[in-house]
């Protein structure tokens, strides 16, 4: 979908799944479907699938109750996936070396933090220019 001026109009998909590793697959599938719709190529979609899986799994493993709420959107020139799940106060988010290495390779930018009683992630990837 392309706006008259050639840019991709802002759009947003939200989903909430149980904060369990079994449901991360749904987040992965939704992300890749949205990325495909926006014109990312196969390699880029695979990168996004891996990134969202790693970030969602990290959060779910640290906050294994409640819901993982994920918002997939376009913001300006970026494809943005944000996720959050409730976490106990003082519970650290652990990102091991292997996961960090993968995320550095597949994301343009990512962020993982605990704020306001929730573990949160943001993953950004530049939208395809066509």
């Amino acid at each position, binding site marked *: 979908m392309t706006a008259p001026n050639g840019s991709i109009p802002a759009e947003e998909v939200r989903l909430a799944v149980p904060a369990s*590793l*079994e449901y*991360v*697959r749904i987040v*992965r599938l939704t992300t890749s479907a949205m990325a495909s719709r926006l014109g990312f190529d196969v390699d880029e979609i*695979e990168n996004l*699938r*891996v990134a969202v*899986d*790693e970030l969602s*799994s990290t959060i779910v493993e640290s906050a294994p109750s409640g819901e993982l709420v994920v918002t997939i959107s376009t913001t300006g020139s970026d494809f943005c996936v944000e996720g959050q799940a409730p976490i106990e106060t003082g519970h650290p988010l652990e990102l*091991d070396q*292997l*996961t960090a*290495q*993968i995320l550095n*390779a*597949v994301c343009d930018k990512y962020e993982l933090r605990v704020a306001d009683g929730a573990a949160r992630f943001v993953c950004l990837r530049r939208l395809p220019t066509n």
Partner: protein
Amino acid sequence: MACAGSSTPTPRRRLEDQIGKLLREPIDEVVLDLSETGFLDSSGLRAILSAHRRLTESDRRLQLRAPSEAVTRLLEITGLTDHFTVEK
């Protein structure tokens, strides 16, 4: 040994259990067939690394067979391609 599905906890546990069983057998090499593994993440990769370590510690080998493009890519990203013997 085939490793199908994605790297959710169940296949990972199955892999760990299978490696545990194979370690009790008089074998020299384990071939892990990844042709049906459509997606692998860091936790799945850690399970394979753990299997590799357990087998190597008992003087056995682990070979990866027919990894999909996605799995091959993850091995490349993490610099682990040369860590394993890979059969295309």
